[in-house]
């Protein structure tokens, strides 16, 4: 990889090499469809030159060092502060730019380096020609540090204390309450990036490599027949991704090839655990479950774009293949395992994606577009009869792995007509066609009509309204018979059910003065599953967003935003395997409101202040109605967050910044609300995982200006 022969001149050879590299991924082909395609023939590019930009050589920027106090008695606060260290914690900051006299430029950045969520980057090269970047970024997700469990992690194993006494139910485990300890569930990701790009006169090549390591623990359900234990499954895995792409362009055309390869490796092949329960049958003292298998994927894509005379054609074809051949675990570890038909899945899924797009201007003010997308998923894995040992306890015959093949096709034709300079209408028709295997329906079709009216009312005010209506139907609904319990014949799974959908959105924006701008929108979606008797029958979504910002003066900005959404879902069910006799209404609501101010250059330009406040509240209320109304319990998350800083310039090159983060957070889930580890007879749970805390973060950062 280090010796990429970018010096070859002949485009043909280049593309062959690019193919051979078989790297690059990100289907972000956006590069190819951007400004480059604009008609620049008449543009006077030389006039765009920045006359005020002074190219100075040498170092610029700042470096800093910080220390903070972080209250992580509940590590969930770490999702906001970036670290779960409780107490004192330090970090480094950098934003350094070195430019040589010859135009060579190096950038060094560090942000909260030392925290789990810190990042750093070194980038060097000649802007506009070539660049090499080396980066690091930490990502963290903190769930809880108060999950109660009697299990200890030991490699792939979750073991109980030596003195553990099993019980038929959680209430009959005599040492349970004495043996539980706090267990932390969090995941940390370290992402390392290496990238290079080179821009020639008529081509551009990019290569990126990313290595990500993940570790931590997450909740896992270890089931043995009807008994289950919540376990802290260890996570130790890594993902490598290599991506390369090369694009060639000339007048009115652009072609490119991009490719990528990724590989996932898991240090754990399995999770296994001692059963805390007395075996229901036989001698099921241990459980074992496969962990995510190692797997690989590669993808190669080709893009082409032609334009001229107001017409443009885009083409994209890509093929990808996903494989995994991780060795199978035995079907059971409790007693002799039935023979497996193969030693591993030898799984392979190939996908083919194709996009064709045309757009063109037919007349003044009138442009049309047409699009065809094809996407195929072909599971080439061998079909075998696999023995089913139900939750490691009893043999229940064999089942053949389903293919779940799928072919999606989409046709979209539309037109945009501009009546006046201030008003245009855009509308179109879209047809989606999906073919499936192994599902209750063989095919689904959806017809969609959409229209958008955009009106610039005045130089200050603009508005648009968009409406979409779609109708989905499909082939005969025949409930799959591969499940061990047959489906209610009246059930229509929501993702396969007939559906009528309406979407409306109205947007109004004001940008009348330099100091004040605002926008607001209201939106509503209505999904009606018009042929469903049992299952999801309707979903209504309504909401609005308002945001505004006001510049009081050169140094003082304030902004505010408000967003609310409601989603009401209705579901019908049956207790007697027939027509519906119970109904569930789930009403979800979310509110997000915030305001912030930013005051610079106070105290003789020595002090900058910032203050942001946000409040978010999401909740879900479910009522089950069968004559009597039975509400589910609480399910919500509510957060007040204050994020403030003050940065004081101590001297010409020295500054001190003070950060204060405060968070008041509460959430609750009726699934475990108020429950102890032994509240459910056949499920050993983590206890109540709800959060309720007030936490502060105080930080001081000293920075030096280069």
């Amino acid at each position, binding site marked *: 990889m280090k010796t990429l022969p970018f010096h070859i001149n002949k485009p043909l050879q280049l593309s062959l090499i690019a193919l051979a590299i078989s790297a690059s991924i990100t289907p972000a082909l956006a590069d190819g469809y951007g400004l480059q395609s604009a008609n620049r023939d008449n543009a006077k590019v030389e006039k765009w030159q920045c006359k005020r930009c002074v190219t100075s050589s040498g170092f610029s920027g700042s470096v800093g060092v910080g220390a903070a106090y972080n209250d992580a008695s509940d590590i969930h606060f770490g999702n906001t502060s970036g670290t779960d260290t409780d107490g004192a914690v330090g970090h480094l900051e950098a934003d350094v730019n070195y430019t040589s006299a010859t135009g060579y430029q190096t950038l060094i950045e560090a942000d909260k380096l030392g925290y789990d969520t810190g990042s750093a980057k070194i980038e060097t090269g000649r802007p506009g020609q070539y660049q090499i970047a080396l980066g690091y970024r930490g990502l963290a997700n903190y769930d809880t540090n108060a999950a109660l469990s009697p299990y200890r992690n030991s490699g792939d194993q979750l073991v109980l204390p030596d003195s553990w006494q099993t019980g038929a139910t959680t209430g009959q485990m005599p040492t349970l309450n004495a043996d539980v300890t706090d267990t932390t569930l969090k995941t940390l990701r370290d992402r390392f990036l290496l990238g290079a790009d080179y821009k020639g006169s008529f081509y551009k090549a990019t290569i990126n490599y990313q290595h990500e390591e993940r570790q931590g623990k997450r909740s896992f359900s270890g089931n043995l027949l*009807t008994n289950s234990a919540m376990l802290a499954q260890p996570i130790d895995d890594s993902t490598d991704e290599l991506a390369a792409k090369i694009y060639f362009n000339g007048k009115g055309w652009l072609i490119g090839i991009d490719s990528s390869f990724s590989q996932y490796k898991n240090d754990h092949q399995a999770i296994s655990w001692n059963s805390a329960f007395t075996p229901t049958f036989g001698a099921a003292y241990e459980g074992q479950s496969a962990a995510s298998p190692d797997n690989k994927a590669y993808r190669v894509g080709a893009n082409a774009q032609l334009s001229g005379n107001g017409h443009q054609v885009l083409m994209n074809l890509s093929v990808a293949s996903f494989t995994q051949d991780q060795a199978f675990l035995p079907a059971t570890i409790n007693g002799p395992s039935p023979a497996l038909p193969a030693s591993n899945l030898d799984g392979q899924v190939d996908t083919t994606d194709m996009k064709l797009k045309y757009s063109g201007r037919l007349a003044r003010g009138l442009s049309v577009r047409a699009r065809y997308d094809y996407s195929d998923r072909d599971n080439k894995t061998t079909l075998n009869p696999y023995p089913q040992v139900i939750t490691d306890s009893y043999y229940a015959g064999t089942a053949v792995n389903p293919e779940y093949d799928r072919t999606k096709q989409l046709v979209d034709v539309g037109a945009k007509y501009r009546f006046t300079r201030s008003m245009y209408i855009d509308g179109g028709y879209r047809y989606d066609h999906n073919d499936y295997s192994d599902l209750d329906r063989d095919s689904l079709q959806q017809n969609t009509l959409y229209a958008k009216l955009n009106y610039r009312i005045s130089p200050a005010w603009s508005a648009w309204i968009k409406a979409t209506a779609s109708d989905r139907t499909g082939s005969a609904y025949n409930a799959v018979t591969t499940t061990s319990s047959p489906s209610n014949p009246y059930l229509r799974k929501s993702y396969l059910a007939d559906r009528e959908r309406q979407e409306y959105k109205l947007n109004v924006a004001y940008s009348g003065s330099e100091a004040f701008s605002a926008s607001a929108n209201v939106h509503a979606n209505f999904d009606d599953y018009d042929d469903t008797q049992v299952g999801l029958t309707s979903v209504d979504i309504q909401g609005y967003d308002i945001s505004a910002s006001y510049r009081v003066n050169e140094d003082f900005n304030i902004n505010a935003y408000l967003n609310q959404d409601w989603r009401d879902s209705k579901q019908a069910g049956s207790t*007697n395997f027939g027509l519906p*006799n*119970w109904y569930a209404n789930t009403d979800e609501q979310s509110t997000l409101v915030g305001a912030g101010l930013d005051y610079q250059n106070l105290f003789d330009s020595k002090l900058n202040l910032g203050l942001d406040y946000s409040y978010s509240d999401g909740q879900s209320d479910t009522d089950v*109605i069968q*004559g*009597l109304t039975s509400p589910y319990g609480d399910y919500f998350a509510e957060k007040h967050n204050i994020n403030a800083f003050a940065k004081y310039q101590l001297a010409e090159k020295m500054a001190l910044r003070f950060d204060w983060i405060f968070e008041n957070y509460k959430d609750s889930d009726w699934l475990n609300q108020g429950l102890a580890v032994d509240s459910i*007879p056949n499920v050993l749970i983590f206890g109540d995982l709800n959060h309720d805390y007030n936490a502060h973060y105080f930080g001081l950062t000293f920075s030096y200006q280069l």
Partner: protein
Amino acid sequence: MKLITQSRLHKSIPLGLIAILAGCGGDDGNSGNPGEPGGPPATEIAELNIAVNDVAFDAGIATINYRITNEQDEPVVGIPSATYIAAQLLPMGYTNAGNASQWQYFTSESCSNVCDGEFIDHKNGQYSYTFSGAFDGMNDISFMSGATQRVVIKVGGDALPDGTALPMTNQHHDWQDKGSAPAYTRNLIEMDTCNSCHNDLAFHGSKYNEVETCVTCHNLDKVSNPDNVFAPMVHGKHLVGFPVSLADCQTCHAADETLTENMNWARVPTMEACGSCHTNIDFPAGQGHPTQQDNSNCVACHNAEWTMSAHSQADTDAVLGQFNVEIVSAVLTGTTVELAVRLSNPATNEVYTESADKLNFVNDLRIYANWGVSVDYTTRSARSIKLQQTAPISGSDGLFTYQISGLTVPSELTAGIGTLAIQGKLCSDDDMLANCAETDNTTNLKSSHQFFSAMALSDTGRRVVVTNETCGSCHGDQQLNYHGSRNDLEGQCQVCHNRNMQAEASADNPAASTADYKHLVHTLHAGSRESYPDINYPGNIGNCAQCHTEDDAGVLTAALPLDSAVQPLAFDDGTFTSPTAAICSACHTSDTSMSHMTQQGAVFKGSEADATAGTESCSTCHGQGATYDVLSVHPIK
């Protein structure tokens, strides 16, 4: 049944209005209020139909408005008494995950001379009853808005002021206060299913005769002993003496799509319901079944398909579907019958080419032979061979010949008819035939019989009195096995259990001491045999049609006169009782009855000559079509 009643009411409204118009002519007389048709009150009442119009609430106190008519849709006026029971149903899973729906008793109130609440006879067939108070809080039960409610109205068992007797009638009405139709129900079983064996079940002084009534009181909130909650109580009462396999839940939980919860037996397994038959299980203690504290887990393993399969006859049917025995010819030579047998697999339409002694799945296959159906057989000791142990005397390719010798063939009966009865057991593993060396599991064949003359097989033979179908109405389809695997109650048992069996001369009830089929069956079901002290006939023993079939002319075979083949009852002291008297006196045991029979020509313990002299004149009065026809004096349904 209830639906029919209600639809009759709907039909009766226009009819009733027409009657009013006709009755009133141009007169200004009292016309019925709209929706409350009047008409002349009923004078003859064979049945009472109760239709509930509505349940109205005033300050939480319910008033039930209903109409009572007779079978002619004529209003019944002047009902002297009634009982009203109110209960509330909690839906499935409401009391805890996995729990069955559950009735909660509120109250039972009665009206006769005095009333707990307020009773109004509107004198036009319409009645109203206002309960003594609000349901809410009665019996410490909260009335829950939206819950399914039930009121049972019980009337009858007494008479109108003019003396017209009123049949005992229970009628339930389910409703909820939010809208008309209840959002959920608990319709599991029709009373007709119970009465297929029990004929006319009624309890508590015969007042309560519908399942829908029973459950309003037999629930946790009314009965103090949990064993008396309806499901455990009924299951428990059927554990002993049940005439058919208990494993077949659908004997009682009949598949009936008009009953919304008819599949609850498979879909809602609970400790209470399942444990009342599987009595060796203590769920909370983990004895006989892994520990379960509540019902929330049951369906995790015992889903409906599992439960249906575990209680299903499907495996038995599948095994039996793989084997068929057919007697293709029979010839009597002297006292030896030579018969040819073909064994086949109906599932594959293939003939088993080997004889039974070579087929490794045949555990037992026997053929019994007896002669002389015109005299109810010539011996009680039918001759038999065991095909699984007997090499055929000839044959190949699936058709094999055997001989059964030693039949009793009196010279005067050489032109008669004999019977060959087949029985057996097959070794099986789940739903497949299996090698007997590898399994202990056997499946009983459905026994059968075949008539034959001296020359050939015969389609006709012994008279048919009961059929496997009539027996099966309580005992299941050939599921009652005696002596191992004999289950052809229609024609097999009689091959040995015939008139050659003798009664004990010293017995109080001679019929209860002989194993002759007719007497054996009558006295068994009547519970009068000492060796079967626990027999508790579930129905009305006088309903001959429960067991007797009809002859070709459509006449019940219980009718007199008796078939000429019926012989007198033989005693072990050499005496005989004439045939009709022997049968009737099995149940009608009193001295009065016997002296009546004697006066009419019956012979008790006389000589064989007297007992067969034909002096019985029973049929004169009790014969078919006569004044006191046996068929009309018995409560035959």
